[in-house]
């Protein structure tokens, strides 16, 4: 791993000041550190944000669950408040990576990295999340802009993610057996007015499947989407799964998720 300067600022302002085009914010480091070790990324400055107290924690209000950026997956999975308000979100967090990754990895890191196979982005999309940064609030559908790309600007830092509490929700994923990343993952959320079906792992970036969402919005049942074909165009094809296989999994796991709601 190439050398860098390590910083551990105590507040967001200092963290933002240290940021440059040659720096990275470090939260759990579960992607950043392996990427640096493999030589896929290198930085002059690594800015650890874990000592910024206000970035960690879980708050539940009547309508939403807000999770601080440096809150670990294990904390979300074990949170009684999250389990009560949005059990699907706790379940999602409890199945990310492995136990040791969940003890370090954070929600802010996951969504800022926007790996096309990460779990959390699908929850953000399906649960109409608002991403709070040190500069502004960004709706999830404007936040995830492409493969490993987000709307975040240089020096902009995710502070918290605010999820809308749905009537019902469930997340189903088909994990890669080695990395536990989603070969595909489907997050189904039934809100008062409509239903969102968010898909991760299938394409270069998380997305809402409009056809499935529309069908389920008018009739929230497995039978409503039975036999519906999910098109494989634009889906990833790699050593783990072909585009056609992924398309079939999306259809299958959407049904599974609706059934589990």
């Amino acid at each position, binding site marked *: 791993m190439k*050398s860098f300067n390590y910083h551990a600022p105590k507040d967001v302002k200092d963290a933002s000041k240290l940021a440059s085009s040659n720096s990275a914010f470090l939260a759990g480091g579960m992607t950043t550190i*392996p990427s640096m070790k*493999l030589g896929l990324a290198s930085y002059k400055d*690594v800015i*650890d944000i874990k000592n910024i107290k206000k970035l960690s924690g879980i708050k539940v209000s009547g309508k939403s669950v807000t999770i601080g950026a440096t809150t670990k997956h294990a904390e979300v999975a074990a949170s009684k408040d999250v389990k009560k308000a949005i059990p699907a979100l706790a379940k999602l967090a409890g199945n990310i990576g*492995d136990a040791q990754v969940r*003890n370090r990895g954070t929600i802010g890191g996951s969504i800022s990295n926007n790996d096309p196979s990460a779990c959390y982005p699908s929850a953000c999309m399906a649960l109409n999340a608002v991403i709070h940064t040190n500069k502004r609030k960004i709706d999830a559908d404007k936040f995830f802009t492409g493969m490993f790309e987000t709307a975040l600007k240089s020096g902009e830092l995710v502070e918290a993610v605010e999820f809308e509490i749905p009537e019902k929700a469930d997340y189903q994923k088909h994990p890669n057996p080695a990395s536990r990343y989603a070969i595909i993952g489907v997050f189904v959320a039934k809100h008062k007015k409509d239903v969102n079906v968010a898909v991760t792992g299938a394409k270069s970036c998380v997305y809402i499947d409009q056809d499935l969402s529309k069908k389920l919005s008018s009739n929230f049942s497995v039978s409503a989407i039975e036999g519906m074909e999910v098109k494989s165009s634009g889906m990833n094809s790699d050593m783990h799964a072909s585009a056609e296989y992924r398309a079939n999994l999306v259809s299958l796991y959407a049904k599974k998720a609706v059934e589990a709601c």
Partner: protein
Amino acid sequence: MTKVTLEVNGKKVSKEVPDHTLLSVFLRDNLNLTGTHVGCDTSQCGACVVHVNGKSIKSCSTLAADIEGSKVTTIEGLAKDGKLHPMQAAFKKTHGLQCGYCTPGMVMSAVDLLQTKKNPTDQEIREWLEGNICRCTGYQNIVAAVKEAATKM
């Protein structure tokens, strides 16, 4: 360079190391605690698992500077007064290892599991150990070891 002060296996240690020093490197190269193994470059194998403030983490994916002031337990810190920890004894008894490379990580990870779940099921043990890869045993005897240890811990 940065000064890192930790409590490792009950002893306070302080070393001046480059900022990018990984905890696994700090333990192995700076403290000569080579029981913590490094089996991959991708954070998937789990051979490097140690406890930081009581929780299992991958030392190959954690900066030493990042855990400044923490309490670290490595495989060398489990045995007390020359007597194997119940998890180590159970791995020995049930033949939960062959080449032994993954064993330190397996043991540290399994000890963390039993801290929160006293009597895990086979399924829970297998799920917990997803981040620990063994290429010899086929896992059967590792699961047996964790179950055996659960009766002693």
